[in-house]
C-alpha cells in the first residue's frame, strides 16, 4: 500500500464518489438540457449536487455554478469582475502567495492595464488584515485573497478582512480561493462574507475536472466563453453531470465530519511536528497556527526533488514544497522570507482523514534513512 501524503495536490476518490459517477455515466447519461425525461433526470442529479454544495456553504442553490475546476472558477470570477466592475475603477488587491490560477489571472489583468497591489506578510511571515485594508484606494474594485495557502497551509486573515471590507467598502468585490479550506476548515458565507468563492472537487475525494464558483446574489457576471444557456449562460457548455454528481457525493460525505476530521488531522500534525522537532536537520516552513492538513519543512542540504524521489522509492508520496524546477520557484516560500537554500529543500506533506500515525512513523524513518544515505549539497 502506498503511503499517500500528497492530499493537497489531489485526493483519492471516495467509494461513494466513484459509485455516484459510475451510476451517472451508466444510467443518467441524458443531457441536462434535453427536454425529455432522461434530460430531466440528469438535470435533477446536477441540481441535487448544487443543493448539497450550497447547503455546505450555508447558501442557496442558485448561488452555485459548476465549472471544470478551481482554475476556471477563479478565472471566471476575476475576469468577470474586471469586465463588469472594473470599467472605471482599475485597482486590484491580492496577496503575494496566491495559487497560480489566481496569480496568473491577475498578472494577465495587469497586462491589460489594471494596477495590482500584492500584499506581503509582515516580517514574522504573518499576513495582517490591516495591510490589505491600507492598500485600498478610491480606484480599488476587487480584492482576491486565498483562505488556506496551499504550499505551507498558512491561514490568511480573509474572514476579518472581508468583514472589514464589507463594512467600510461594500462596493469592492471580494473573491476568495477556498480550495484548500473547503470541507477541511469550517467555511460558510455567513462567517466569510465573500462575493465569489472558488472550489474544487478533487481536493475533497471528488473527481478531477470539476469545480464550483459561489456567486453571491446580486453580483453581476459576464461569461468568459460563449455558447449555450447552461449555468445561466455564465458558463456555457453541457454540464459535466457525472463529475458534478461525484462532487455532490463528496460534499455529502465530507460535510458532516469537518470538525471531527479537523481534530484528527490536528493530532497527526502534532505528532509529525513533535517527531520532526527531534531531528536537528529539519526546519519548519509552516506556521503551527495554519491548516493542520499541510506541513511544510526543509531537510537541510537535500534538495526537495531528490528527497521526494527517495521517499517515493520507499513507497511514500509527498510534494516538493515549493514545486521548484531547475531553480525556478513559485516564490511563495520566498514571500515568507524563507531563504532560497532552505526553500530548495522544502517538502510538503499533506494529510487526509485516512492518514495514520503509523504512516507518519514510516515517513520519519524514511527521512532519517534518506538524510543518512543521500549525498548532501554543500
Amino acid at each position, binding site marked *: 500500500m502506498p503511503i499517500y501524503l500528497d492530499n493537497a495536490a489531489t485526493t483519492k476518490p471516495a467509494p461513494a464518489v466513484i459509485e455516484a459517477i459510475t451510476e451517472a455515466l451508466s444510467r443518467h447519461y441524458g443531457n441536462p438540457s434535453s427536454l425529455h425525461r432522461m434530460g430531466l433526470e440528469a438535470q435533477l442529479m446536477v441540481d441535487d449536487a448544487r443543493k448539497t454544495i450550497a447547503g455546505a456553504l450555508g447558501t442557496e442553490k442558485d448561488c452555485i455554478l459548476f465549472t471544470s475546476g478551481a482554475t476556471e472558477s477563479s478565472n471566471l470570477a476575476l475576469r468577470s469582475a474586471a469586465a463588469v466592475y472594473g470599467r472605471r475603477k482599475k485597482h486590484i488587491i491580492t496577496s503575494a502567495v496566491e495559487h497560480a490560477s489566481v496569480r496568473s489571472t491577475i498578472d494577465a489583468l495587469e497586462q491589460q492595464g489594471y494596477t495590482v497591489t500584492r500584499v506581503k506578510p509582515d516580517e514574522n511571515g504573518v499576513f495582517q488584515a490591516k495591510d490589505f485594508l491600507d492598500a485600498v484606494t478610491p480606484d480599488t474594485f476587487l480584492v482576491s485573497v486565498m483562505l488556506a495557502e496551499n504550499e505551507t497551509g498558512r491561514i490568511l486573515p480573509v474572514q476579518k478582512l472581508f468583514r472589514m471590507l464589507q463594512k467600510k467598502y461594500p462596493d469592492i468585490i471580494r473573491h476568495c480561493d477556498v480550495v484548500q479550506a473547503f470541507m477541511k476548515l469550517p467555511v460558510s458565507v455567513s462567517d466569510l462574507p465573500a462575493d465569489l468563492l472558488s472550489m474544487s472537487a478533487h481536493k475533497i475525494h471528488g473527481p478531477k475536472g470539476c469545480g464550483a464558483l459561489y456567486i453571491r446574489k446580486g453580483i453581476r457576471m459576464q461569461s468568459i466563453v460563449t455558447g449555450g444557456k447552461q449555468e445561466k449562460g455564465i458558463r456555457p457548455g453541457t454540464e459535466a453531470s457525472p463529475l458534478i454528481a461525484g462532487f455532490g457525493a463528496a460534499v455529502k460525505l465530507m460535510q458532516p465530519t469537518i470538525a471531527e476530521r479537523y481534530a484528527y488531522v490536528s493530532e497527526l500534525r502534532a505528532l509529525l511536528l513533535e517527531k520532526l522537532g527531534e531531528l536537528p536537520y529539519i526546519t519548519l516552513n509552516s506556521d503551527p497556527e495554519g491548516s493542520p492538513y499541510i506541513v511544510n519543512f526543509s531537510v537541510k542540504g537535500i534538495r526537495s*526533488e*531528490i*528527497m*521526494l*524521489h*527517495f521517499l*517515493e*522509492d520507499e513507497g511514500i508520496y509527498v510534494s516538493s514544497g515549493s514545486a521548484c*524546477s*531547475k531553480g*525556478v520557484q513559485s516564490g511563495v516560500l520566498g514571500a515568507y522570507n524563507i531563504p532560497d537554500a532552505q526553500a530548495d529543500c522544502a517538502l510538503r506533506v499533506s494529510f487526509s482523514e485516512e492518514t495514520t500515525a503509523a504512516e507518519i512513523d514510516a515517513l520519519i524513518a524514511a527521512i532519517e534513512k534518506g538524510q543518512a544515505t*543521500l*549525498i548532501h549539497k*554543500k
Partner: protein
Amino acid sequence: MKEVILVKYGEMALKGLNKGSFEDVLFKNIKYRLRPLGQFAYSGAQSTIYVEPLDDSINLDEVISRLQKVFGIATLCRACVCEKDFDDIRTKALTYLEEAFETASSFKVEAKRADKSFPMKSPDICRELGGALAEAFPDVCVDVHNPDVTVMVDIRDTHAYVYAGKIRGAGGLPLGTSGKAMLLLSGGIDSPVAGYMMAKRGIRVSAIHFVSPPYTSDRARLKVEQLCEKMTDYCGDMHFYCVPFTEIQEQLKRRCPEEFFTILMRRMMMLIAQEIAKKEEALALITGESVGQVASQTIQAMVCTDAVCKCPVFRPCIGMDKTEIIEIARKINTFDISIQPYEDCCTVFTPRHPKIRPQLEAIEAAQEKGHFEEMIERAVAGTECKTFRVGQ
C-alpha cells in the same frame, strides 16, 4: 491519373564501384520506412528510384514526408506518369498541373530527354508544352528567370514524367552504410542533434543514457526515451541503453575533489559507453559537446575525457553555436522535448567551481582513489536495453 515519386540520390551517385551497395541499402531503408503505409512497386534506373503506390488509398503527402527523413536522398519529385507520346504528355499535364497553377502567377517548362530516341528535342518539348499551358491558364504568364512553378518533363526509358518542382530530401548517405556508433544521450538539446548529424552520414546510431535515482526522476528518463523515439524519424530503429549510475556518482561525490567531479563523471560515462559499444558492435562514440559551452567542454577537459577512450569520439556539434544547434533541434522536432525541465545526471551534483583547465595527471590520480572498476562492471551489468522502432 497515375502518380509516382521520383527519388533522386545525392552524393551517392558519385560513388564509384561501391555505388551498388549504397543503392541496395537506400532501397531497403526506403522500403522499411514506407512499409506501414501500404504496398508500393519499386524500380531503379539512372540514379533515380521510382516509388509507385499500388493502392489508391495511400496518402502521397505522408509518403513524401517520410521520404524527406530518409538519408541518402537529394531530391524528391511527385510526378504524373505519361506515355512517351507528346499528346499524352500534354493532356495529362494540363489536368495534373491545375492545382499547382491555381496559386501561381508565373511558370516555365524544363525538359530532359534521357531517351534520345524520343522524336522531339528538349527545346521543342518546352516550347510546345509551354504554349499549351499558357493557353490553358491565361492568368499565369511565362517567366524563365524567376518562375513560381517550374514544370519538369522527364523523358525516360519506359515512361515520361511531368512534375511541378522538386522537394529537398534529407541529404547525406543511407543509414547503415557507415557502420554503427553509440550516442551519449543526456536529455539536453545538443545530443539528439549530434545523433542526427552522424546518422546523416550513414551511421546507425544507438543511444546510451545514465540515470541516478533518486537524484534523477522517472520523468527525466521518460523524457530521454521520448527523445530517442523522436530521433527514430531520422535515425531509424534505435537501441536505447539505460545505465544505473547512482553508485558511481555517489562515490565520485564522496571520494573525489569537487572541482573534478564533472570530468571524472564524463570519464566514467565514456568507459561504460565503450563497454556497451563493444556489445553493440559500435565502433565510435558520439557526444553533443561544443567547445567552450560548459566547463567540461573545454579542450583541456576533452583531453582528459578522451584519455580513457580507445575508440574515436565524434562531436559533430563541436564548432556550432547554441543557436545553430537549436535550429537543427527544432527541425528534427527534439527541441520541445529537450527543454522539459527535469534534472539529469549531469546536473545533479554540478560542482560550484568546476576545473576549467584540468591536468590529466591530477584527474588520473583522483580517479585512482575512487576504485571504480567494480562499480563500472556493475553499471554495465545492470544496463537495460530497449528498442525504439521508426513509425511507432
